[in-house]
């Protein structure tokens, strides 16, 4: 405990760096996944091939991706930008299949009814399709946020400052408290983001508040 109290500054700066590397990929992957999902949701062959591709991409371990990417980005291997791009790619691999499923689950009858009522295509997407797909999109976003926060730590082995550096530094210097505080802060940050997403969804999607019983839709 004394180590933690003596190093609050270090923990704070690592946490801040971690947040700055985790938030952009989460937002980018979520926002970019929506148009891609919309594009592929109605095209069967494109959806199956992209979903399969995303599955394979997700099988690639993160560290090799961090190492290979600078070849294409021209960044240094220790650049946070490199981490952000890599994690956005992972986020898309996770989010695109989940978002396309969410959009596909919206009833076609409802969409046709909206068209019949005079909704223009773009208006229908924003005002009918997206809100109805909302709860399933939020479920995908939660998985995306939690796994991204955890993946940022891997950059620590390359020397990119984040909570992951606490593991490396703690291991090299034999400070158990440092590693433990890194783990606790990573998990706490993931759970906090998860909680914020759940609360945000409650405000944005008030109709989804009553938990639907399993199978009630069938």
């Amino acid at each position: 405990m004394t180590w933690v109290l003596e190093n609050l500054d270090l923990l704070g700066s690592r946490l801040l760096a971690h947040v700055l590397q985790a938030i952009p990929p989460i937002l980018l992957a979520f926002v970019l996944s929506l148009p891609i999902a919309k594009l592929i949701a109605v095209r069967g062959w494109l959806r199956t091939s992209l979903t399969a591709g995303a599955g394979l991409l997700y099988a690639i371990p993160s560290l090799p991706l961090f190492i290979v990417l600078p070849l294409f980005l021209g960044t240094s291997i220790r650049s946070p930008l490199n981490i952000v791009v890599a994690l956005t790619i992972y986020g898309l691999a996770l989010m695109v299949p989940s978002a396309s499923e969410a959009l596909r689950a919206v009833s076609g009858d409802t969409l046709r009814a909206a068209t019949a009522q005079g909704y223009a295509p773009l208006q229908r997407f924003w005002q009918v399709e997206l809100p109805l797909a909302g709860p399933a999109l939020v479920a995908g976003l939660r998985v995306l946020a939690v796994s991204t926060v955890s993946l940022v730590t891997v950059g620590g082995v390359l020397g990119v400052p984040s909570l992951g550096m606490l593991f490396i530094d703690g291991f090299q210097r034999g400070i158990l408290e440092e590693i433990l505080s890194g783990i606790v802060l990573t998990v706490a940050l993931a759970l906090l983001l998860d909680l914020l997403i759940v609360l945000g969804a409650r405000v944005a999607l008030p109709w989804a508040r009553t938990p639907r019983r399993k199978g009630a839709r069938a």
Partner: protein
Amino acid sequence: MTQLLEALAWIADPTRWSGPGSIPVRLLEHLWYTLLGVGIAALVAIPVGLLVGHTRRGRGPVVALSGAARALPTLGLVTLFGLWLGIGLTAPVLAFVILAIPSLLAGAYSACEAVDPRTVDAARAQGMTEWQILTRVEVPLGLPLLIGGVRLAAVQVVATVMLASYIGNGGLGRFIFLGLNLSDYPQMLGGSILVVALALVIDLALRLVERLTAPRGAART
């Protein structure tokens, strides 16, 4: 792109294909650790998952557990156990097992859950015991999902084995960390290519097993 060529030349160098610490040795170490981690985790997680799926009890805690496990940083566990338990196989294998359990649990219980309850009731009406229902109806029908859980666990462990090289274990991650220490980018890149290839081969092989174990005649979703 010259760096990519250098990395390929690094892999192709015949001196790296024989002797201690060569690519085949590291590859076998990597596979062995993965098998050990997934195997031990499967012994624990698959029976528990099947029990949860069959009885439909305890689903809440299991789902919560697999959700929470996603937040656990793998590198943190590896370094924590490494420091705690010292050099040897115990520390990394413990981390592999912990990280493999959630996917295996989820795969096993969803394998049972995905079976149509009417099919299970029909089996029960025909006089099958609960054990027979599990082994002759639920497991055969849900096998692709069970294997899917094994696949996710294996991919996760392959990545973790790579990180465990950092605390002094073998495996293909050695090349990456050696390259990192020497600022030898071709070696890092070469090691990375090998790890990616291994992960993809394991993923594709288990996807194939998933296809092959899909029960004939059952509707594929």
